[in-house]
């Protein structure tokens, strides 16, 4: 930015001189603008492929200001991000994706692990990722593709996940959250405390689940386990029999008219809930916030069986090397340095490096979002709109309480192919 300003300043001055004549002007501006043009040929641009979760305009603007790196967002759905990595690995530089897709991405060889030693804040990354426990020492459920199972590779070009810490990190963690059921407390009018309520005939025709097989089956498994019908060894890696059983329970509920609709994207889930078509459904945190910001009561209900969690992070395309790779490290280091973390925390997600995010948040914000304390002042979204009035408490409480109660993680199962077929059968039933 400064370069550009200087250029125009100089040419204006040259113009003002006037007497220098046309030739002089051309030569002069050519000579002077030449310098910044050489620099601008080196404009640091990174193509950033990811879902909309982390792709805030504020983040890219701040990044450009702080580091001079221009971020070009390529936004896609989770499935499409994976598809793109497989089929067009050269169409992006930095990849922001979820840990559960690593089981597909790493064997494809299309992504490059990052070097932990070059990540300044790596040692400050929350133990949720590295040890599978909260900073307070609570053990986190390890069913499904938990991040610590796939965080490290054995070597630089290895396709095997390492059992213990190495310097080769598959995804540098950025954002994660604990998901649960969203409910309309004003229409349900009684406490909800278990996943099994999703299939409670009381809510016949007013329940919903999401129609994304890999996530939907996890929610279904939470429900089946909560009803006491079956206890899975690992909900994130079911056997064929377990898949059959889970889908049978869900199919019976579907045939009995339990579900009003299934949803596939964020807006659908908001519409279903806001219009009162459903009163209980699987949901994502920002969707709950959206319903609430419309003035409609909606709770992201903590349940006794725990949360289904997800996490995402950064890696780079295999085609990235040289200066571009340095920029990628610079960008990842910037991302973990606090501004972005605070931005994500304010949306109800969690940032990977808590200490730097805390430094970028007001103490009352930190107390509300992370410590589960009643809001001292009104809580605003990053865009300045009112989210919660003073006195409100976050659903599920503190970071420790929420992340400490995670039961399982989004996953890709060994029997994924079979599961997808069974899911189609469920939809057709």
């Amino acid at each position, binding site marked *: 930015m400064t370069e550009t300003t200087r250029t125009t300043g100089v040419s204006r001055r040259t113009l003002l001189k006037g007497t220098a004549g046309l030739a002089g002007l051309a030569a002069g501006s050519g000579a002077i603008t030449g310098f910044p043009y050489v620099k601008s040929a080196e404009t640091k641009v990174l193509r950033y492929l990811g879902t909309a979760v982390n792709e805030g305009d504020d983040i890219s603007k701040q990044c450009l200001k702080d580091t001079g790196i221009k971020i070009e967002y390529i936004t896609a759905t989770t*499935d*499409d991000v*994976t*598809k793109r990595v*497989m089929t067009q690995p050269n169409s992006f530089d930095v990849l922001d994706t979820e840990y559960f897709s690593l*089981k*597909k*991405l790493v*064997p*494809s060889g299309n992504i490059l692990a990052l070097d932990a030693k070059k990540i300044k804040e790596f040692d400050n990354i929350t133990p949720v990722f590295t040890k599978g426990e909260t900073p307070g020492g609570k053990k986190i459920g390890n069913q499904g593709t938990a991040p610590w199972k796939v965080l490290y590779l054995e070597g630089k070009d290895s396709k095997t996940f390492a059992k213990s810490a190495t310097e080769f990190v598959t995804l540098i963690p950025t954002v994660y959250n604990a998901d649960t059921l969203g409910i309309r407390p004003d229409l349900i009018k009684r406490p909800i405390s278990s996943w099994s309520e999703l299939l409670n005939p009381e809510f016949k*025709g007013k329940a919903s689940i999401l*129609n*994304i*097989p*890999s996530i939907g089956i996890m929610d279904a498994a939470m429900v089946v386990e909560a009803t006491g019908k079956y206890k899975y060894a690992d909900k994130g890696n079911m056997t064929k029999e377990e898949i059959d059983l889970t889908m049978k329970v869900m199919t019976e509920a*579907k045939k009995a008219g339990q*579900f*009003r*609709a*299934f*949803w*596939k994207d964020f*807006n*659908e889930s908001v*519409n279903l809930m806001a*219009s*009162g*078509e459903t009163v209980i459904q699987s949901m994502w945190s920002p969707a709950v916030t959206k319903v609430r910001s419309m003035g409609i009561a909606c709770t992201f209900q903590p349940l006794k069986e725990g949360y289904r969690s997800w996490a995402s992070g950064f890696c780079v395309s295999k085609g990235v090397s040289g200066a571009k790779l340095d920029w990628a490290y610079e960008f990842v280091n910037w991302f973990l340095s606090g501004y972005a973390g605070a931005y994500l925390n304010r949306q109800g997600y969690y940032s990977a490096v808590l200490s730097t995010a805390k430094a970028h948040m007001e103490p009352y914000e930190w107390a509300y979002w992370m410590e589960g304390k009643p809001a001292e002042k009104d809580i605003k979204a990053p865009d300045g709109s009112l989210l919660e009035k003073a006195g409100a408490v976050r659903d599920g409480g503190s970071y420790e309480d929420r992340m400490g109660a995670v039961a399982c993680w989004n996953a*890709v199962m060994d029997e*994924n*192919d079979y599961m*997808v*077929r069974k*899911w*189609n*059968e469920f*939809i*057709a*039933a």
Partner: protein
Amino acid sequence: MDTSENILHQASPGLARGSDTARNAKAARLSPSFISWLQAGPMMLVFLAFFLIPLVFVVIVSFWDYNEYQLLPAFSGRGYSDTFEGCIAQLPDLCTIGKTYLKTLKLCFMVWAITLFIGFWVAYFLAFHVKSKTWQMGLSLLCTIPFWTSNVIRMIAWIPLLGRNGLVNSGLVKTGLINQPVEWLLYSEFSVVLALVHLFTFFMVVPIFNSMVRIDKSLIEAAYDAGATGFQTLVNVVIPLAKPGIVIGSIFVITIVMGDFITIGVMGGQQIAAAGKIIETRLNALQFPAAAANAVILLAITFLIITMMSRIVDIRKEL
């Protein structure tokens, strides 16, 4: 290619027969069949590059194997055998693919019948009751209104209208016609058919209208003079002459509805199976060969329906 030549000749006899001397001189060097090829060439190339070649790839890939993260270019019938899984074992119950196609065909038939009925009468009105060309144009443009809104808008628009707390339900409850909101208005086969009809009736109107305006009015007068009733004229004169339009419109509607999964998904609350949906789910799970196999099956079935329809009417002859 003979037939396409015939069509070209019929469609633009002036071009092929060109009477001035300059063209005759040229035609002496370029044979008429070469000119026909030249005329059809650009479209053929586009067709080849963007339809036939990709289609061949789809068929090839449908016979490949795959794992979690890549295609394995080795012959495998897995895409197909997985798709028809349980079709024999589960008899007399239908397997997933059977149920899906039964549902898709049912929706398709309902939408076809309704769009044909509405489309025929709209076209009839435009062709025979609206006398001025300007009004005919203006009114046909009115029919395009459903195309002014996107899927997303429709999705949001239908819910306040048909939903549990929607306009229709609250209106019915207030007038005392019903005590409880009616649930089947939204996220049901009804809402799917409603949305599809709303969308695609236009594809029936245009070709039928096109056939009808070409009907020589003196034929209808002759029918009246011969003492035919209005109904007899309709059945014996108008419908047979509008047949090509009816068949073309039907092909449009049937091919679109067979492959649709977005409208069915949105209006059916994602609870209604669609052939296209299976393909999408497979693609999203990176199971490309399975998706390709399903695409080939869908194509084959759609092709079968169209072949049967063109048995009834030879479109090429009628045009």
